[in-house]
């Protein structure tokens, strides 16, 4: 078993340590770890008689040190324990993300948790529902006390001087914390109202739940006795499309779909759910080999072409999958043409962009924006920003971002189709006309009139100011990408469809409401290299 356990902050300073084997110098071991630590190294490192086993969660590192003379160490146990302990802490502190301050604020609580979860390095239990029964009375939760204080304070408007002093120190120590506490209180309140019955029941027969937990182990993700007035189940299929194409050479580099099935379950009792997905029914080999399911899914059921599971309560990701698309499958949104036309004689340069959609006609994008890079054009041509740039688009607005050199064409809604729905945008910039400029300068010099008044911002000066610094002018790959952001509701790029969704609860036999939604969105990378 591990000799000692630490929780370290991002600077590898120990926040809390638990000495299991009476190690004389805990600090030294932490320092030793600091010396050998490399972020990229595997989670197990060995140095000078010590094996260090660590997991990195949020900004913290949970570390366990094992002496090399100590054979009785199942590393799997250590890592699983650290992992579970992290989850446990999150549950106890009721926060989605742990940080340094939270640990420091709850030293005693964590010490006690260590004490309860491990005896002489042997893990006893990490089930939060059980431990909450054990540790409940003595939990010193700064979060909740502070929330209470704040509530008191706002209600009574600071009566006790003692309390006020505390409150002040709190305020000084960090406003954002205050906000966070309020958030937490809010969320817990919400939770309480939504699952009021659950809480009550847990309060009454905690011992029951303990037994249930230990004996009916296979369903460790759902407690018994959950009750909702209205039984609802929400299922969202969201697909992110990643696409990258070299527009000039016409080569598609990436064409991927990252799909996720999000679920929100507000169901009573122990419901059994059955979901059929068309991909599974058709035994789509690609889908089957590239999908991962939540622990609640009984994987055997996948052979029977449906997903069977008893869902955990609340939010969870039922399934993640990744699909590759064929090169010839048209992208949902296609850049059909991109041209830069220079009309030297007219001292003008034009950028023409046309896009087209490739999805079902009855759907349309709920948000679409196209980003057109300009740095290359500014580099190739001498653009005269004293003359106004002109933009024309069939729908939507065009915005000119001067500091980062791009045009943002906000299209908004665009109807689906199979190449027939097209939208285009033209942008026109004036080129620097040397003759004209010299003539003007000459005129100005000779005439007595003041120079003509110009209204609006002086773009050329702003441009100069901003771009003074980056003299190097290296044009990176990113500045040659036409990127698109979009969202298409009610449609999945892969064609994935939920064929049916059955909810069965044998004992309660309630009516339930399943909701299914689909959406396709663009990934971070949805771009054309031009």
């Amino acid at each position: 078993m591990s000799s000692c356990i630490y929780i370290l902050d991002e600077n590898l300073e120990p926040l809390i340590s638990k000495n299991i084997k009476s190690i004389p110098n805990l600090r030294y071991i932490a320092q030793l770890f600091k010396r050998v630590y490399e972020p990229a190294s595997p989670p197990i490192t060995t140095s000078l008689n010590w094996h260090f086993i660590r997991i990195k969660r949020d900004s913290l590192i949970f570390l366990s040190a094992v002496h090399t003379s100590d054979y009785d160490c199942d590393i799997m146990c250590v890592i699983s324990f650290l992992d579970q302990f992290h989850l446990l802490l999150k549950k106890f502190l009721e926060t989605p993300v742990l940080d340094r301050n939270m640990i420091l604020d709850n030293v005693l609580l964590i010490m006690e948790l260590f004490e309860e979860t491990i005896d002489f390095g042997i893990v006893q239990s990490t089930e939060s529902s059980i431990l909450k029964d054990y540790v409940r009375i003595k939990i010193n939760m700064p979060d909740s006390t502070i929330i209470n204080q704040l509530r008191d304070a706002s209600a009574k408007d600071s009566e006790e001087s003692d309390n006020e002093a505390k409150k002040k120190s709190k305020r000084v120590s960090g406003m954002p914390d205050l906000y966070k506490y309020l958030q937490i209180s809010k969320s817990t309140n919400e939770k309480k109202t939504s699952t009021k019955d659950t809480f009550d029941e847990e309060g009454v027969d905690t011992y029951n739940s303990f037994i249930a937990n230990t004996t009916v182990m296979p369903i460790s993700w759902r407690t018994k006795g959950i009750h909702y007035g209205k039984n609802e189940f929400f299922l969202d299929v969201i697909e992110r499309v990643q696409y990258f194409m070299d527009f000039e050479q016409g080569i598609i580099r990436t064409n991927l779909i990252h799909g996720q099935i999000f679920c929100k379950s507000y169901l009573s009792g122990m419901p059994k759910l059955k979901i059929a997905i068309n991909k599974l029914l058709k035994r789509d080999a690609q889908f089957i080999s590239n999908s991962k399911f939540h622990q609640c899914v009984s994987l055997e059921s996948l052979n029977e072409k449906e997903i069977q599971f008893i869902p955990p309560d609340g939010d969870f990701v039922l399934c993640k999958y990744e699909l590759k698309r064929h090169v010839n499958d048209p992208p949902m949104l296609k850049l059909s043409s991109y041209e830069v036309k220079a009309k030297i004689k007219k001292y003008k340069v034009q950028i023409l962009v046309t896009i087209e959609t490739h999805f079902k006609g009855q759907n349309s994008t709920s948000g679409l924006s196209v980003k057109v890079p300009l740095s290359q054009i500014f580099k190739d041509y001498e653009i005269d920003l004293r003359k106004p740039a002109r933009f024309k688009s069939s729908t939507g607005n065009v915005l000119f971002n001067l500091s980062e050199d791009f045009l943002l064409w906000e299209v908004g809604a665009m109807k689906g189709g199979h190449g027939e729905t097209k939208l285009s945008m033209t942008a026109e910039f004036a080129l620097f006309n040397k003759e004209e400029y010299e003539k003007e300068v000459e005129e100005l010099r000779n005439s007595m009139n003041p120079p003509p008044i110009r209204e609006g911002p002086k773009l050329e000066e702003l441009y100069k100011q901003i771009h003074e610094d980056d003299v190097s002018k290296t044009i990176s790959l990113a500045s040659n990408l036409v990127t698109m952001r979009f969202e298409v509701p009610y449609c999945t790029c892969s064609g994935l469809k939920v064929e049916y969704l059955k909810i069965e609860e044998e004992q309660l036999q309630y009516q339930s409401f399943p909701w299914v939604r689909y959406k396709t969105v663009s990934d971070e990378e949805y771009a054309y290299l031009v």
Partner: protein
Amino acid sequence: MSDHKIFTRYKANEIRAELQSFEVKKSKVSANKRKDGLKKIIANLTLGNYNEMAYLAPEILKFWKIEDDLEVKRICHEYVRSFGIVNPKNTVEALPFILNDLKNRNEKIQIMALKTLVAVPSAEFIDEASRIIPSFVNRRSVPPDVTRTAIYALKRLDEVNHDRVVECLPFLLELIQRENVDPIIHVAALNTLNSIHESNPNLQPLKLSMETAFNSLDLLQTLNEWDKALVLDALTISAVPGSHEDAYEMIDIVLPQLQHVNTFVALNAFKFIAYLLNYVDSVNESLIKRFSNSIISLLNKPPELQFLVLRNVILLLLSRDVPLLNLDVSYFFIEFTDPIFIKDTKLECLYLLANEETLPRILEELEQYATDIDIQMSRKAIRAIGNLAVKLKHHSASECVTALLDLLEFGVEYVVQEIISVFRNILRKHPSEFKSCIKDLVKYTDSVQEPESKNAMIWIITNYSDNMSNYLQIFQIFSSKFLEETLDVQFSILNSSVKFFVRDPNPKTEKICMQMLKSCTEDSNNPDLRNRAFMYWSLLSLAQTDKAHLLSNESLKNILDGELPVIELNTKLDPVILEELELNIGTIASIYLKPVSQIFRNTRPRYLLPSPALNKSRGQLKILHDTKNWNNLESLDTLHEDFSNNRSDKSAHKKSMMNDYDKPAETVNQLKGKRKSSSTSPSKLSRKPSMLVRKLSIRKPFS
């Protein structure tokens, strides 16, 4: 209340003042303040502020006397534990209080006291512990929680006072055998007994009777996850099946645990079954499928856990000639979000999984990695392709070579370097098959930069000089900058120049050879290089002088330009070590793939205990392909056994609906494969899919 304020260094006086000032009032406020003071002590101990805190010992003892609060007690105990380690003598004063706490009616305080007692490494404490703990274990009236702690404390005590603990061992064994013992005590006794036996080489390995083993296994249902795993761990080795039937029965009991969410339990179940397979003459294929599926589901975990599982997959793939796993390669394909250590391990798995059947898919994947933006990854992928070419037979190797040549055209600098480096190994393994590639390789002579790839290039030029007309010209690219090269490249250049001359003595080669020998002996500062040059020189001159009868040209050629042995990649470990490693699934040994004795000192290696049912060699295990032969397993197991989605499985009893599963997934990788639209094919099941969808979806935009 709690804040960062607690977590700063304090002087002893400050805390003392805080503790005393509120002592008078008995109100709740002062009790809280006092607690804060105590908390500060603990915080300071965590910060390592021992010197200051040492002054507070009297205060702590005072509180111990008067307070009954659990939290205060806890702090007092924590204080003694932390101090006892640093300065055992000073804590002796606290001993009476601890002994007093042992008699407390509150179980928690008793447990606390027990823990403190063994935590302090001083003679007084150990004496007391050795006296008290066995009595706690023996007494029946003690509550189970306390007994359990006492039993685990024995384990700790064993490290300091082995003789006293040995006396308790028979009692522990009796506890395990006794009926109607609280399960948690049973587990504690089993675990403690097992680990004491294991950590003391002078004791015989623990061997349990079949009956006891079955009793322990029957408890599995009632235990929590960690205890489950501990039982499975302890029973590995110590439960020796007397016959094949016993082994089968035990496997049946443990099998459902493979599906457990906790990786620790699943992997221990795995270990236990793998161990039992040594006592079984044949095993059904469905078990292998089950193994594989449980491993695959374990891969869907946080990266650190995934890493451990992957390392164990490597172990299991290596461990038997017919591996216990049958995994589809696609699970080991790398995702760009994987941390580096996962990527490396996955590459290793891919390498091990590669065979003629899977190679095309693996190669396609590796080629993608090779063009990755991440340079390290790209290099590793190329290395892996090279290693595969060395590992596999001629036909598959040529596929690898083709892939490498394709990548070579890619022309990126580091890719070229790496390919040249791996090609040397490929050519050494398959000396004559790939001669035709050499022309392509040599084109890149100018672009090799790194010492390793230079070495490789020089080696290739030298060994295949007869395939090239202008080899000397190419060689001169290197030899002309001789002095600028790193040492190992210099060695290669020297060796090659001598080889050229010996092979084909003509004025040109002689000139180069002499030039090199000269610059080695005259310009080089490195004694090794100089010495080698002198040695060559004297050898060459010996053969040329009138003493030529001492050294014929033939033997000179043999010495300088001999045949190199064919290389083999050594992935096989010693079978004895493998057997030991298989019993250590999940431990550190499995991560490093080294025998336990090399990683942990003072331990007895695990080995299989003899039994009439023990297989003589691990190869003896047969895998049956017929489900009907193994009915007992099926009947106990309610889950449907037909894992028809076991992808790459080439089983004999394939159902007709499975037909599309044995197809390699190239069709899946549609970027390069045949056209197959993934978006527009309609569903076959629902007659009116549009209706269903309309029913199911809500016309409301996403929030």
